[in-house]
Every structure is written in structure tokens, then in C-alpha cells.
């Protein structure tokens, strides 16, 4: 499939630039870690309270840090108008979208993997009781976030107040993702883990990702042409 080959090329380009500058990863990771540290001061470390609050904390940290990274990843394409170069290339415009979204998924996942252990450590909660399930959940969350985020970040590329508008438009659409993420995490770290609930929400997240992936692929080209 030439779409996937070109998408991989676009994603690899992003990751290579990031490997060199490390700017986005450091900013996101630092911001995410900071949020977690603030939580650890703001909330008393009482087992019950923490157990109830940690899922929300994790996903809010991912959302905030993710938005910072998302904005930067697309700002980079603005710098020398390189987004136009990508859209001008004789590759399906879908490949541009998939490539950007894939690279951003990885960055978001990386940040989630920084925030989760830190949260577990500072708030003394066993987030890693089910490591494989947690990883799956974070992967699905990162994909969903990057996917919806890329559509809106690309659309807002030419808008002056995009930094403010991006979260305002993005978060309402991401509510189902956050609900699923939080509920699944909750089920995972409960005193008696609720496997039915966990898999229900993981399944929900999978469907959310699939639906929005199809939707994004469908609208992306129409949204990015001036």
C-alpha cells in the first residue's frame, strides 16, 4: 500500500526532527510531570481518595501535555510552510494525515509512559497491577487523541488564535475518550479490579478510535485546502 509507505515516510520525518531537537518530547514530558507533581501536593495521599482521583489525574495530564505537543508538531509544519509541501507532494493526502497522526500518537504515548509511573510513585497507587492492559489502554488513548487532534490542528494551522481554539474545539469531542480512559483505569486500580468494566471501556475506546479514524480520513483533505 503506497498510502502506508508514504505515511511512514511522513511520520519518520517528524520523529527524526524530534530526535534531533527533542524539543516537543521534553516540553510535553516536563509539562506532564509538572501536572502530576502539582497533584501530589494538591491532594492528600489517602488511599481511598487517591484511588478515586488518580484515573482522572492521569488522563487530564495526558490531555494537557498532549495538546502542547500537538500544537508544536503542527507549528513546525507552519514554519516554512512545509505543510504545503506535504500537500503538494504526489501522495494521497490521506498519507499526510496518517503520518502526522502516527508520529503524534507516539509522542503522546511516550508522555503517558512518563506520567503513569510518576503518578504511581508520588501518589502511592498501584497503577501497574495490570501492565499489559494499561499499555493497551494508553496506546488506544494516544491513537484516539492524536487522530482527532491532528484533524483540528491541521485545520487551524492558518488561524491566528489556534493555540486557544485548539483545546476549546478538541476537548468536547474527546470527552468520550476521556470517559472511557478514566473508567477503564478506575476498573483497573479498584481494590477488586472489575474486568468486565475494564474490557467494556477498552472496547469502547477501540470503537471510538476506529470511528474517528474513518471520519478523519474522510474530512481531512477537504479541511486542509484553503
Amino acid at each position, binding site marked *: 500500500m503506497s498510502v502506508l509507505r508514504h505515511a511512514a515516510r511522513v511520520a519518520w520525518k517528524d520523529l*527524526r526532527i524530534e530526535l534531533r531537537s527533542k524539543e516537543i518530547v521534553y516540553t510535553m514530558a516536563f509539562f506532564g510531570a509538572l501536572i502530576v507533581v502539582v497533584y501530589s501536593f494538591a491532594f492528600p495521599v489517602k488511599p481511598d481518595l487517591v484511588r478515586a482521583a488518580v484515573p482522572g489525574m492521569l488522563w487530564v495530564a495526558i490531555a494537557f501535555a498532549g495538546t502542547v505537543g500537538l500544537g508544536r508538531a503542527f507549528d513546525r509544519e507552519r*514554519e516554512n510552510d512545509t505543510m504545503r509541501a506535504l500537500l*503538494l507532494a504526489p501522495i494521497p493526502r490521506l498519507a499526510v494525515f496518517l503520518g502526522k497522526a502516527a508520529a503524534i500518537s507516539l509522542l503522546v504515548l511516550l508522555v503517558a509512559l512518563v506520567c503513569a509511573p510518576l503518578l504511581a510513585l508520588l501518589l502511592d497507587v498501584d497503577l501497574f497491577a495490570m501492565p499489559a492492559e494499561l499499555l493497551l489502554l494508553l496506546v488506544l488513548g494516544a491513537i484516539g487523541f492524536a487522530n482527532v487532534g491532528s484533524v483540528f490542528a491541521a485545520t487551524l494551522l492558518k488561524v491566528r488564535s489556534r493555540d486557544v481554539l485548539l483545546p476549546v474545539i478538541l476537548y468536547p469531542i474527546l470527552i468520550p475518550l476521556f470517559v472511557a480512559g478514566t473508567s477503564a483505569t478506575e476498573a483497573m486500580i479498584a481494590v477488586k479490579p472489575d474486568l468486565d468494566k475494564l474490557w467494556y471501556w477498552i472496547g469502547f475506546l477501540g470503537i471510538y478510535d476506529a470511528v474517528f479514524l474513518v471520519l478523519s480520513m474522510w474530512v481531512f483533505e477537504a479541511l486542509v*485546502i484553503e
Partner: protein
Amino acid sequence: MGALDKVEIKKLTKRYGTERALGGVNLELAAGKMTALLGHNGAGKTTLLGIVSTLVRATDGTVTYVSSGAPVEGEHVRRQIGMLAHSSLCYAELSAVENLALTAGLYEVDGSPEAITAMLDRVGLEPKARDRAARTYSRGMLQRLALARALLTKPSLVLLDEPFTGLDRGGALALGEQLGILRDAGAIVVVVTHDLEAIAGRTDHVAILRRGQLVFEERGSYSYEQLKDVYHRFAN
């Protein structure tokens, strides 16, 4: 799918809100011809190139791309376009060589070190800068890289928006020569510029836009004096 023979622009209109950037432009661009697209600031030149490059949507009117007698669209058209825009379209964090390798990959053309070196020689980017991040380039160096990026893919529709800005006299002359070579090789070349001296004697076709209208169009070669004359008569 091969080179484009012709681009037909019909009744092209572009509105930004209530502002009309283009108001029904008709123009035909032919293979092996260099068109100079002239006009004052805000006349609509960049907008026209944007629509022809497929990146800007027309409000009304059509652009038809013809290859071997049949209309083509989408990726086939984009494959044939070489664009030199106001900005470099190159990644600041990547070097000249890496930028060209990326372009070669996306266009599936020869991206070997030899091919890239040959192209950078052709645009005259100094060898010791080629492996440095483009962020560190001077304005003129970046312009040369942008040109290399546009030419690497062997385009048959070359769209250049103010290609001479930032180039020194030698660079501008060399670029003029390169454009002549492309035209002679059969490409459709469109140059938007305010630098009439740089294109004097090289164009086959002159078109002048004024407030989104095509106010002058004529085929034939123009000397610097003639270009200056028609520009002053029609652009104002």
C-alpha cells in the same frame, strides 16, 4: 502519466470573504513557454499560483491540466508541479541533503547522494553548508535550496513566486538561465516577479494582473525596456 502540455485557466475567481482576489481570469499556459505574471502588490498573482498549484480552492472557474491530449487531475498533476513559493517549503531542522532526500522519497525520484549533489551544484549551494541544518542558512542560500527542491522532481509545470528575492546578482542571473533551460526542455514555466531585469529577453508570454483582473496578455519576447513600458501602462 507524463509531462503536462497545457494548463487552461477559465473564468477563475477567488473571493476571501467579500474581498475579491481574482475576478474571472482566463489564461492558457503552454509547454515550452515561459510566462511572466506581473502586477502590483495585492494584484492576485500569488492567489493565482496557489490555485494552479491545487493548494487553494477557486471560488469559481476551472483549471484544466492536459497531458498527452487528455485532462489529468489529483496526484498526477501534483507529480508534475515544481513550486517555489514565498517560503522555502523546507524543514529548518534538516540539512539541504536531508530535505532533498525527503522530497525524492515523496516523489519517488532518484534521491541518491550523487543526484542530490548534482542538483545542489546546479543551484550553487556551497558544499560546506549542505550538511548543516537549513535553519542556519542565509536568505539566499535558503532560496537556492528551495529551488533545488522544486527542480529535483523534474517538474513539467514550474511555478515560481518571486524567485529572485534574496539572490545576489550572480544568483539571479544563474536562476534566469536555469529557467531558460527548463523552458527549452519543454516545461511550462510561470514566473511571478517584480524584477523585470532578471526576466528580460527570456519570456515568451507576458500577463499582467490588476486588482484580480487580467489587463494585459501578449505572446512574444520582451526586452527590459518593453517590459517596463507595458508594466507601467497596464499595472497601474
